[in-house]
């Protein structure tokens, strides 16, 4: 594997879509060829927000179903982005550009999903723990989870255990993701898990933790359900936890 195989090249143009996505892209919800899906996929993989937005507009005008666009093109595109990240062809900036493109497309689709009563099956709450103002890692996780087809509620930074508990009670998520960048703020993860237990809601949610100083061992010690060292791993973790209940 070359670390930087085709710097800044369009990963799909010229080489075509990966085979498994090329097949998807030929068929729309109505069985018609759907070039817009191809463009949407490419726009997200290449992190082009304007192109993603335009592709969704065109696809919707052509009668595409919002959920089909998400499941058949957007989620696979973010999976491809995750694969490129794992292969060290993409880095955090590329993840964020793709996340931005995904978000731009979702802005058009969310109102339509709400109007039709459709929603994502898995809801995830993310937040940086109390005392910690670092939000970049948390934002990347939120972006990748959204790209993975999950509904994400971002509580922001410096989130107290009480706020996590309140959000679990009010929003009924299946997953709580906590982030901490500093050794001095990590203990707030345990305090939050304790607060979830005291409030009687710990068993309702899976708790995942991450951040620079956090380790699998620490996650085990504080009673978290999972740990990931990067955002892509967090997506995989949530998918594995809810295998069979696709987003």
């Amino acid at each position, binding site marked *: 594997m070359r*670390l*930087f195989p085709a*710097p*800044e090249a369009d990963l799909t143009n010229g080489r075509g879509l990966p085979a498994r996505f090329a097949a998807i892209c030929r068929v729309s919800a109505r069985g018609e060829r759907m070039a817009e899906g191809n463009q949407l996929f490419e726009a997200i993989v290449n*992190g082009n927000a304007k192109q993603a937005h335009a592709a969704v507009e065109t696809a919707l005008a052509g009668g595409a179903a919002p959920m089909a666009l998400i499941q058949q093109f957007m989620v696979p595109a973010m999976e491809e982005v995750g694969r490129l990240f794992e292969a060290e*062809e*993409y*880095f*955090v*900036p*590329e993840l*964020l*550009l793709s996340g*931005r493109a995904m978000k731009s497309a979702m802005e058009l689709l969310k109102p339509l999903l709400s109007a039709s009563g459709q929603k994502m099956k898995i809801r995830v709450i993310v937040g940086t723990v109390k005392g910690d*103002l670092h*939000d*970049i890692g948390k*934002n990347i996780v939120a972006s990748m989870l959204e790209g993975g087809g999950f509904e994400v509620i971002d509580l922001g*930074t*410096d989130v107290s255990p009480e706020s996590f508990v309140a959000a679990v009670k009010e929003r009924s998520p299946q997953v709580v993701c906590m982030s901490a960048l*500093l*050794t*001095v703020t*990590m*203990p707030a993860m345990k305090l939050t898990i304790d607060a979830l237990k005291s409030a009687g809601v710990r068993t309702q949610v899976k708790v995942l933790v991450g951040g*620079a*100083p956090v*380790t699998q*061992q*620490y996650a085990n*010690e504080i009673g978290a359900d999972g740990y990931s060292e990067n955002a892509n791993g967090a997506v995989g973790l949530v998918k594995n936890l809810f295998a069979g209940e696709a987003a």
Partner: protein
Amino acid sequence: MPVGADLVLNEEPDPEAARNHGATLGRVIEKTARRWNTPLAIPLMDLRLEKNDLLARIGINRAEAEKFQFNAPIDKSRLGILCEKRVAFACPGSVARDQALDYIATLPDLVPVGMAIGPFSLATRLMADPITAAAMAGRGIAATDSDDVELLFQCLRIAEAAVHRSLRSQMAHGARAIMICEPAANIAFLSPRQIHSGSDVFDRLVMQPNLRVKSVLAEAGCDLIFHDCGELIDLMVEEFAQRLHPVILSLGSSRWLWQDARLIPKDVVLYGNLPTKSFYSDGAMPVEEVMRRTEELLAKMKECGHPHILGSECDVLYVPEARDAILKKVDAMMAVAAPEELLVKAEG
């Protein structure tokens, strides 16, 4: 030597008061240097100070400053205020830092060392999503075509002005070397993919501002100590070592210093880089592993023949629940480095 002033500060009866009291802070820094037998009086690595002072200029108080981020391009009048050269610190920590330098400067056996966040790292703290903006700039999107890119370059400009004010003040108070900390100049913020494809994003956002920092220091005869504990590619290390050419280059534990030595001129001393961020955990980093890594690092650095100061990968932060675990490992690291000296002390 570890960058350990925070550990010593927290031995004070009231650490927060000591942080903001020049004379007490000066004694803490002196005590830190003497405890670990170094002439370098390295202060607290408090990278909030320049941001606090910068935002105070537009009426944002210290309590709000930590969370404050610009979310749209800054208007001209505010930019003017934020870029003013006049030094006027509102943050008690900055005043205390300078007074502590005054105190250290009176001690003939210690070198007064200053500390400041680097321009790029400060800029990243002034906006919500600096990574995407930097990535867009790296794709050649101009400030005139994107509010995000425009804001990034504005933040960089005001950050650079704030850092220059901090440097001038610290030098006026006796700093003979200043540690510039650029932890955000790493592969999470700046894409290696873009850099290797020929983008000048790293040069524009990191190198050019820091070369100007170097000039400010050099004009006053003050040495540059450059610290970046982020994850780096070789090109970044080369640029720091060869173009910035600091007297000391401090890197994080993701780097193998003995391999980096080939990228670094012999007159740049390497500092570091034990994984002190993991010292809090006996499970993740047992004391035996600290000793093994210290022995390995010392042996390999001796073998490659590059000047090296054994130390921490960053500042060693005080963690109340893990104080003993951290101190035990810092002591173990230092004991491996100077067993004979410690033995003499113990016998004495």
